[in-house]
């Protein structure tokens, strides 16, 4: 008799536990944005996403060469006529970008921090 009276209380406790667990699962999904990446786009489409922590050199469709070194990204070579992209200083902070308009290439630091840098 006694046990039967306690059942609803136990159910409520379980439902609460389920909701709490749901909240934890939901919130953990939001924490995935860590890690700083270099997003490379060609003609607006994502061409490559590299880690800023890893030194790398990327040939972008034969048009520009991207170099990641010591936690900064820079366009080291470009076949465009004005060369503004290769003259751009290295970028390392979230939201910063280097663009080569003639080639339709953009290189942007993403993940954490600013959404855009203007």
């Amino acid at each position, binding site marked *: 008799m006694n046990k039967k009276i306690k059942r609803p209380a136990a159910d409520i406790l379980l439902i609460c536990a389920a909701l709490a667990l*749901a909240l934890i699962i939901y919130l953990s*999904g939001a924490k995935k944005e860590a890690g700083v990446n270099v997003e490379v786009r060609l003609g607006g489409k994502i061409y490559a996403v590299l880690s800023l922590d890893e030194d790398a050199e990327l040939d972008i469709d034969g048009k520009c060469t991207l170099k990641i070194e010591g936690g900064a990204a820079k366009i080291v070579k470009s076949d465009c006529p004005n060369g503004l992209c290769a003259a751009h200083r290295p970028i390392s902070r*979230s939201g910063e970008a280097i663009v080569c308009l003639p080639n339709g290439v*953009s290189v942007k630091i993403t993940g954490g921090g*600013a959404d*855009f840098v*203007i």
Partner: protein
Amino acid sequence: MKRLIAVLAAAVIFAGCAARPERYGAVYTDLFDTVTEFTAYCSSREEFDRLSGICYGELKRLHEIFDIYSESETYGAASLNAGKEGDCPAELYELTEQGINWHSLTGGRLNIALGSVLSLWHDCREKGILPDPDELRSRAGHCDIGKIKLEGGRVRLEDPEMSLDFGAVAKGYSAQKTAELLINSGAESFALNVGGNVITYGEKPSGKWEIGIESPDGGIFTTVKVAGECVVTSGDYQRWYEVDGVRYHHIIDTETLYPAALWRSVTVITDDSAEADALSTALFCMPYDDGRALAEKFGAEVLWISPDGEAKRTEGFSDYE
């Protein structure tokens, strides 16, 4: 044990039902001679693609109207400058009307009739040379804003030598129109950056949008947090070319006819992107006191960075930092 399984299953179902909007982004490089970035939080990739299609389509339509080098069939600024007659799009009429208004509000610092001077600078930039001073002065004689006539929904230029250039206002105006269309199309949270003209709507799941303001010498000078406001920066480091080791940037002072030299950059925060774009260009060419009075008239918040790296702010600007 059965209960435990039930609890776990329920937890997964609850978490799954509350679909968290995810961040999606698109970049367009063939509009307004600059880079456009569209970022939005959407419940699915399909939803984002739908919004991105609307965004690109509207910007492209407006780009063709305001692009003075356009080869499109659409009647726009290029046809107007070439002296052609045709059905004037409502947006061309409206922005010309606003431009005339901006000219009087800024004491001529913002002049959409400066096309003949700007096209000379444009041609010289392409060749990597400096314009001939006499040629500049002679072209400045064809920049009289009073010679633009608005009649019966049409724009007419009374001086055949003059031409309109919407470079200082078209990006902001188009971003504003596009954002309004996106909101009417059901977008709930987005940021649109048309070549440094940022317009935001709603918030991110984690809070306000964060816009970094570039320091003229590299790095980030400050970050502003906005949700619904527009942020625009005009800076001498954004577009330039070099002749004999000297840099010449793209914002031409309407009085000296040479690149304005008062500030390294001017950042404006207001509720309207068209207004923010026009204001940032005008303020870039104005001394502090005049600029401050103009900003106050529009309730705009402003950050000025001077050539020696010193910053001045309107009182409310720091509320966003």
